[in-house]
């Protein structure tokens, strides 16, 4: 018997939530970080495709809060709590933050991957959410998928195939 799993897709600089029986996915993470929060009891999950480390660099008129680590984390928590999750049960997993291209003169922009990861860590620390799985860094792209029924995060990459966290 196969169970119909509904797929929720999250695009670049976007975030979303999913409930038990659903799978939430984002594709083509490079320097971006895919951050997932999961409540094991209610089996609610949230995923953000974070592009930049901090909203303090934003120059847009209306800030897209899903795009920056410091704004996406609280928003994800807010949505999950609204859906019925408990903030103190949330656990985090994250992947991405790669450095896709290597250059001799490393400007700050080029180091955006590691900075995104660092910023996500800080934001999670601020809300006291433990990171229970992480696959970050390197120089390759990733696609990630969180199964809400199990809380397992699958990570696929071109060079290294699949792995689960």
């Amino acid at each position, binding site marked *: 018997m196969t169970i119909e799993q509904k797929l929720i897709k999250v695009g*670049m*600089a976007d975030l979303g939530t999913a409930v038990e029986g659903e799978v939430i996915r984002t594709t*083509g993470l*490079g320097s971006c970080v895919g951050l997932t929060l999961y409540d094991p009891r209610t089996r609610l999950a949230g995923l953000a495709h974070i592009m*930049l480390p901090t909203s303090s660099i934003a120059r*847009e008129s209306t800030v897209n809060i899903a795009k920056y680590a410091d704004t996406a984390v609280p928003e994800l928590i807010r949505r999950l709590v609204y859906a019925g999750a408990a903030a103190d049960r949330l656990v985090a997993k994250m992947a991405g933050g790669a450095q896709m291209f290597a250059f001799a*003169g490393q400007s700050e922009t080029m180091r955006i991957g590691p900075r995104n990861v660092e910023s996500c860590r800080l934001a999670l620390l601020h809300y006291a959410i433990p990171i229970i799985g992480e696959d970050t860094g390197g120089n*390759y792209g990733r696609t990630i998928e969180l199964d809400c029924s199990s809380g397992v995060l699958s990570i696929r990459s071109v060079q290294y195939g699949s792995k689960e966290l």
Partner: protein
Amino acid sequence: MNDFHKLHDFKLDVLKEVGNIGAGNAATALSRLLDKPIDMTVPRVSLIQFDEIAERVGGSEQVVVAVFLRVEGEAPGNLFFIIEQKSAKAMLNTLLSIQVENEEGYTEMEYSALSEIGNILAGSYLSSLADFTKLSMMPTVPSIAVDMAGAILSFGLLQHGQMGDSALLIDTAFLEGGEAMEGHFFLIPDPESFGKIFQALGVPNE
């Protein structure tokens, strides 16, 4: 300030011409390099949502070969030369007369050759653009990656990320008939560069 939405048709035409001149010269360079006729498409200039940009080359997870150069100087931006795996292998066969044995990966030599092709093409793209606009545009050393299109292209959108959720992209495709070689040039000028390009070309800035 990031009001690309209100760009008039006239300005879009100017940017199309920018893409046309750059890619035209690059196509000529590629044609010489491969000793084969190369066709190119009319450039497409569009304001494109971050999510949709990878769709141009087959989707976010499509594995592509990409040579990336950061453009420095008066009108900074990001330039990508993107080819499908199949086209990359065909190009190597033609250029180096080596039958690429390993279908999956690339050897050091093949990487280096692809990177050099990208360098030559991007160099001719930029130098013709610099001649045309009289703006200084210098490419950084090229960097090559074989990976998911989404992961690669998102890197070129970071400068736009601070401004909004879309970027203005000048996309020119070229084709080589018989072997069905296909590639794309993506020029993504930094948000600040548009004003300079328009000014340099005498387009009134209202």
